[in-house]
């Protein structure tokens, strides 16, 4: 059975900031816009977490909005 396509994500590399991840995941996008999008797609990191925005090595960081 083939895997259905699910929402794409990356995992942070050691020491990566949201800017680093945004630049890596959305290379064609202006950085500010890319960071903004990464934040809006990952509110489990940027809104739900204390401290907000703390990026953990184990994180799933979505690089696109929900698919449904």
């Amino acid at each position, binding site marked *: *059975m083939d*895997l259905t396509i699910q929402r794409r994500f990356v*995992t942070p590399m050691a020491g990566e900031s949201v800017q680093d991840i945004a630049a890596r995941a959305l290379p064609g996008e202006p950085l500010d816009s890319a960071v903004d999008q990464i934040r809006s797609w990952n509110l*489990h990191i940027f809104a739900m977490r204390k401290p907000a925005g*703390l990026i953990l*090595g184990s994180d*799933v960081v979505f690089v696109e909005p929900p698919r449904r």
Partner: protein
Amino acid sequence: MFDVIVRNGLVVDGSGEAGFRGDVAVKNGLIAAVGTVSGSARREIDAGGRVVAPGFIDPHTHFDVQLLWDGAARPALEHGVTCIVPGNCSLSLAPLKAADRPKVVGMFQQIEEMPPEAFTQAFDWTWEDFAGYRDAIARNLSINVAPLVGHSVIRLWVMGEAAQQRTATPDEVAAMQDVLRECLKAGAVGLSTSFVDLDEHGRPVPSRFADFPELDALSAVLGEFGRMLQCVPEFYDVDITIARIDQLSELSLKHGIPTTFSPVFDNTSTPDNAPRILARVEEQFARGARVWPQMQTRPIDISFSLLRPSLFFARLPRWVRVLRQPLEARLHALNDPETVAKMVEDLGADGGQRMMGGLIVRGGDAAPAQMVGRALGEIAAERGQVPAQALIDISLEHGLDVAFLAADMGHEATDRIGPMLAHPLVHIGASDGGAHIASFSTYGDTGYLFSEFVRKSGGLSLEQAVRKITAETADIWGLEGRGRLTPGHAADIVIFDPDTIDRGEERPVFDMPGEGMRYVRDARGIDTVLVNGEVAYTAGAYTEARSGVVCT
């Protein structure tokens, strides 16, 4: 001469095959014969009208601390559970250096809600390594224990403070592999990790600072032993959970290990979540991965008091405004007749009967005993009040320290959940036994499985339900020689009444060290429980048997 013969029961042997009338004989702690057994035994138990089944296995518990003074993991054993898996969610009590104990105690208190005395008075903390912990609990067991080792404590052992600060270096990862290997040799049945849990300061537990290569390296060690990787994904978000399923599947395929994750809930606010999760699990199993979703049987309740603001009142703006104030101002407002009249008015013509009448007064706090366990609507009627007014007044009369419970607020749709529990790839578990002890009862999920999903809804047959929590669980976890009534298997046996097996009402008890409170549920319909051939519980009482083992 056998040690025990259980006669004339409906033998439901864990295989899923139809039950049959027969006997089960026990010798030297093992099942010796099943069927029509001739001969005699030192003890014969009449199981007429009862089901004779393998002891239940609970794959997700937090009894790590309790086991040090209570080898029966009360009340798990009386519910027919003969084997528990502690050490979930990245936390175990070993390996742990003496200097790091306070840190891990804080994490355990966050999850288990145990009073501090549980860690300072109830046992002698003599060990640091996993073998030491294994030996410490093994001395007094009435129940079998298949312990996981926690990723967070392994990290802490190797990295110290940095375990909660950063990813590990290659040398540190290698050291963690060595530590895990030692734990598995000493009897750990796998590794637990968490992507969700917090310590007592609200900071992510150490396992959450690990990157995927670290988990991959540890899974490689699990692969050497064919052992389980357990994890808690971000269960509140289906997309993240699916990403975790994919990660676990990659590890399962690469290292040939079983993996399991929990909890999986089915909630009406997000009805597509559980079906999407199960669909992904099916896809990954079809590729050969073993990624078992654990689903609990019991519904979720909401509990609150007026001591803290609760979203229970989110549809009542005035209540939110009043209850969000600092305590002194809140008390002032709740004592102001005009304000309270408006608050009650907000509930409409029925005075809150529909929204609040069914709330249960919980107890375990300042609630008077005569109110505990009763519906607010009933108490309000006795007081000649509407429920909203009674809720405020009862709270004020007891310093606001009265908890109210709204039952069955999530994971409660039996007609949806029954088929999911019956799904061949769904692992029934996630009880969290021994955790959240001051918030709600985590005991009796097996009784609820039979009362709600076998007797009431028929979602599972008796044989299916037994298989799910015995042989299937043993197979998933690689617990050899357990989970079946088959000659040569461990004589872990539960004898129960299929017409009455259930969980009792939730009630507060003060049996934790330091007279700490917890909520429990008594067992119903369980006659007798044997652990490794010895009667550990019968006729409503625990025996002196200490036949439990650390099993692998």
